[in-house]
């Protein structure tokens, strides 16, 4: 799949933003006043910024409101509804924390649940696609959720939980890569089933329909960047999980130093997740590529 910057930005930022909102909704940290304001500002900037970025890849963004109508069948529609509901509920909860010095616990829990539901619905947009075997696995939602919760814990400064959640997310990442590499072969779809000619012999793509490129090739067949996939995996894993873990576990004592390290851990994690998301798209083989003798 074509790794569109808008979609990578969206899933990375909003995943983190909703992860932070999840922790804030659970009262972690139970900040009020100005401190609370800063936390909510960061969470909303990430979540809303991500959502806005995602509209950049629409052909007709001015009609985006229609995307709320098909919740019965469409995960994309459900995602839109969950995101707006989570932002509204958490906005109300934030008002209480920032201005009234109070935490409305039940509302916070509802907001936390909606925040996670948003991340889950995002992941299901990809998971549901049989046409992309690498995504069509239960590990996809597990990965999105574990990343979002680990990143949220880092941002929320949940010192005791964050190391465990980061370790878990890292393990899920490794499992996802290991499973994904065999997914297309395991799906049973190849040029033989695509053309229905497999029983007659070995099928080879002889000539594409046109000498030039087209929408399908640009959108679904992305071979160029895959060359460096293994190196990028190492980078993603180091930045996303190993470095942040080392930084938050480092035995330092100064208040400033601790906060600088925590901020660096967050930045490193964000960069790592962005690289992982780039790979998530760039490495995903859409079966339509088979018709062109590519993957």
């Amino acid at each position, binding site marked *: 799949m074509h790794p569109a910057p808008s979609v990578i930005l969206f899933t990375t930022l909003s995943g983190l933003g909703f992860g932070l909102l999840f922790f804030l909704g659970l009262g972690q940290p139970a900040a009020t006043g100005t401190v609370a304001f800063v936390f909510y500002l960061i969470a909303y900037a990430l979540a809303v910024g991500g959502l806005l970025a995602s509209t950049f890849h629409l052909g*007709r963004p001015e009609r985006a409101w229609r995307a709320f109508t098909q919740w019965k069948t469409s995960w994309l529609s459900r995602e839109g509804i969950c995101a707006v509901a989570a932002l509204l509920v958490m906005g109300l909860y934030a008002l209480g924390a920032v201005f009234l010095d109070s935490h409305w616990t039940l509302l916070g829990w509802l907001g936390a649940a909606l925040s996670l539901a948003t991340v889950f619905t995002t992941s299901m947009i990809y998971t549901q696609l049989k046409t992309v075997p690498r995504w069509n696995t239960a590990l996809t939602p597990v990965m999105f959720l574990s990343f979002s919760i680990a990143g949220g814990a880092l941002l929320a400064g949940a010192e005791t939980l964050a190391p465990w959640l980061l370790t878990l997310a890292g393990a899920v990442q490794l499992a996802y890569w290991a499973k994904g590499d065999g997914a297309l072969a395991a799906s049973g779809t190849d040029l033989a*089933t695509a053309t229905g000619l497999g029983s*007659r012999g070995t099928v080879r793509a002889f000539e594409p329909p046109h000498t030039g490129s087209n929408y399908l090739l640009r959108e679904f067949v992305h071979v160029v960047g895959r060359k460096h996939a293994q190196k990028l995996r190492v980078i993603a894993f180091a930045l996303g999980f190993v470095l942040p873990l080392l930084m938050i576990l480092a035995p330092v004592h100064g208040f400033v130093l601790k906060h600088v390290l925590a901020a660096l851990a967050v930045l490193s994690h964000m960069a790592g997740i962005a690289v992982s998301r780039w790979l998530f798209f760039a490495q995903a083989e859409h079966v339509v590529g088979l018709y062109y003798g590519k993957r």
Partner: protein
Amino acid sequence: MEGGQMTELPNSTDRKMGLVIDLDTCVGCHACVISCKGWNTENYGAPLSDQDPYGADPSGTFLNRVHSYEVQPAPCESQPDPAAQLIHFPKSCLHCEDAPCVTVCPTGASYKRTEDGIVLVNEDHCIGCGLCAWACPYGARELDLAAGVMKKCTLCVDRIYNENLPEEDRIPSCVRTCPAGARHFGDLGDPDSDVSKLVAERGGIDLMPEMGTKPVNKYLPPRPKDQIEAQAAPLAPLLKPVAEDAGGFMGWLDKALDKLPGGTN
């Protein structure tokens, strides 16, 4: 062009209109590609735009494309050295019964009609998110870069019921155009229709059945052509020169040329 309804798939459709494509007959001339683009760029919905059409990197929106594949049969006892076969392979929307492109659509723009099973896009509601093209295994949907909306085969819904056209033209443009007669149009839900009989007789197949899309369009497999020499043999007498001994002027010329140095072959 109804819109605003849920993109749920109908449980069943009254008819299953679709195409039967004969891979034995298709000669790969791409006439259907051109006639499809010609009809559909000036009728239903937004035109099918081209980008950089006369430049170095031309591309454009097509609803029907013809691939070519080579099939190499494995050697066996009767065919120790089998010849490879070239198969031309037209591909457009298969109007699937279980169309994944419809259910993923967040706006309700994609829908499947209850009356004839045709899968359409209401271009006034489409936001161009592209998810339906991601969901289609066959590459049957293309986002038009100029209009920003999704384009796909309409089964020429604006021809097949169009009483302003002479009756013989009330079939999809590609079917009407194909000079080889490789494309057939009809109701695949009716077991007595010509297309259903053709599918039964020739063992029509589904593309990527494992995807669970239940395509309506069927493909007729090419007949085996692995005995090329044997097939050519009955034609051999016809391939001989008609007159071996020429008379008259040609005969004189023949003899005169024979006498020249340099020999004959």
